[in-house]
């Protein structure tokens, strides 16, 4: 017997208003003169912080923690960390609302999940948010920085660092990021004991919120927000279009041009070169603004050889491509418009045949950006072709047997749905 009908509207409303259970909550509602007492009891709580104020002193006014510029900028002289650790759990999120006073050379500080109780940069994991000289970077000790975009001064930004079993989702809302934007998906580091921390250096700032809570579905899974994902785990020789992706939004892969198969649990192009478009396989994601990553291996070292991530595909003659080009040792952004290939950006890189490289590409509005192994390489900001196209995928060129693995497509922005509701509850 069927039960009573449930209104989708009521389901969305209930999800949007669901209260989070705070693990840590400091909202700075009570004014306090510098220096603040340490340990500091979070306001309204829960949580307790140890404050380090060796050079510069914190105060609270106007509902914000006031962070001064240091006299002599030194990591470890000004900052704070929780007195107890919060263990790693998938979906556990740190939320920080901050505004920065300057974008001058040398200005920087850092906040996020640290593996040690100090006020230094040296133990941040997952990674940390690293506002620096007008740029928002994401810093993970041992792995360096990811350059994720610009910040405007005197503008409030909400940052969320949502833990995965390894790494974290890094998100921002504020300024030019009008919607919650997935800046990066970090895949390194699974250290368990983490202390929400802030380390000031030379960038004066205000912080209105410093909080942590556990988010629910879909953030409580490493790939819960993915629009498509494939580890290409299947019997060798299976045609790609007969294989079911790990996360399949519906319909699976289409071998859009040339032949593809599963081989050694990777996708590879097979047969002779099908022509000017190269080998293409695409998947419907439902979103035009996306962050896509793939582990790409170039196995054949002949001429015109490369492999890359396809964005905003509508047909074999109209698409965007972020390509690792073995022949020229470059990472390139291509526009294929009405069948014509046009290079829009390129960066020299060092690559070796037979080695997998993580290529990451974002399509966000009219901007296409490309990273290699987490390092930002190139962007192109007039990508108006196919701006609303929602099919993305993989391409190979030159010769057979290049490989793709761990292909994952995430939404770049969140404006509705369960993932957005959770972020808005965090931000409320």
């Amino acid at each position, binding site marked *: 017997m069927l039960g009573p009908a449930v209104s989708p509207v009521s389901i969305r409303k209930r999800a949007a208003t669901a209260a989070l259970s705070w693990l840590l909550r400091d909202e700075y509602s009570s004014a306090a003169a510098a220096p603040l007492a340490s340990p500091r009891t979070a306001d309204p709580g829960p949580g307790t912080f140890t404050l380090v104020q060796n050079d510069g002193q914190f105060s609270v006014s106007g509902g914000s923690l006031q962070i001064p510029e240091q006299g002599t900028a030194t*990591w470890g002289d000004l900052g704070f960390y929780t007195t107890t650790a919060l263990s790693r759990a998938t979906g556990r999120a740190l939320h920080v609302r901050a505004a920065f006073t300057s974008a001058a*050379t040398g200005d*920087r500080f*850092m906040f996020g999940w640290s593996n040690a109780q100090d006020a230094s*940069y040296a133990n941040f994991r997952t990674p940390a948010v*690293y506002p620096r000289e007008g740029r928002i970077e994401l*810093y993970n000790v041992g792995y*360096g*920085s990811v350059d994720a975009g610009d910040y405007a001064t005197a503008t409030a930004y909400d940052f969320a660092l949502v833990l995965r079993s390894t790494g974290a989702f890094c998100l921002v809302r504020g300024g030019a990021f009008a919607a919650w934007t997935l800046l990066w998906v970090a895949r390194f580091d699974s250290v368990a004991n983490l202390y929400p921390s802030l380390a000031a250096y030379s960038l004066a700032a205000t912080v209105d919120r410093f909080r942590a809570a556990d988010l629910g579905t879909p953030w409580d899974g490493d790939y819960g927000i993915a629009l498509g994902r494939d580890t290409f785990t299947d019997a060798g020789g299976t045609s790609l279009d007969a294989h079911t992706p790990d996360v399949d939004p519906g319909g699976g892969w289409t071998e859009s041009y040339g032949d593809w198969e599963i081989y050694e649990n990777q996708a590879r192009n097979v047969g002779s070169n099908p022509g*000017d*478009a*190269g080998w293409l396989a695409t998947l419907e994601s439902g979103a035009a603004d996306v962050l896509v990553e793939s582990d790409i291996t170039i196995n054949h070292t002949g001429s*015109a050889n490369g492999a890359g991530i396809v964005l905003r595909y509508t047909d074999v003659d109209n698409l965007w491509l972020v390509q690792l080009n073995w022949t020229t040792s470059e990472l390139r952004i*291509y526009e294929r*418009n009405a*069948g*014509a*290939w*046009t*290079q*829009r*950006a*390129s*960066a*020299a890189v060092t690559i070796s045949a037979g080695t997998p490289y993580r290529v990451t590409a974002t399509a966000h509005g009219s901007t296409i950006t490309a990273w290699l192994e987490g390092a930002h*390489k*190139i*962007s*192109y*900001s*007039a990508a*108006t*072709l196919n701006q609303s196209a929602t099919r993305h995928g993989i391409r190979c*060129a030159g010769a057979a047997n290049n490989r793709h693995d761990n292909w994952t497509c995430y939404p770049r922005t969140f404006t509705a749905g369960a993932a957005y509701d959770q972020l808005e509850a965090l931000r409320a």
Partner: protein
Amino acid sequence: MIRAQITTPWTGTGAADDENRPHLAGAYALSSWTDVTGQQNVVPDPNLYTVEITCTQAVYDAIAADPAYDVLWAEPLEERIEP
């Protein structure tokens, strides 16, 4: 390292083995370049557009002395200090 904006002609036919690309990129060893004109009509008349490049000082000096290209502006790239 130097960052600069340079005017260059397009070259290429649009085929996979002869893509449309800046003439400058084939003539000099650039660290990176990006089309900042964003022309949808590739190869306009006159055939000229602007790319922003990064390159070594030596490569930049050679480009600046090459009458085939015009430098709109150039500036040194600060050496990055980690973190």
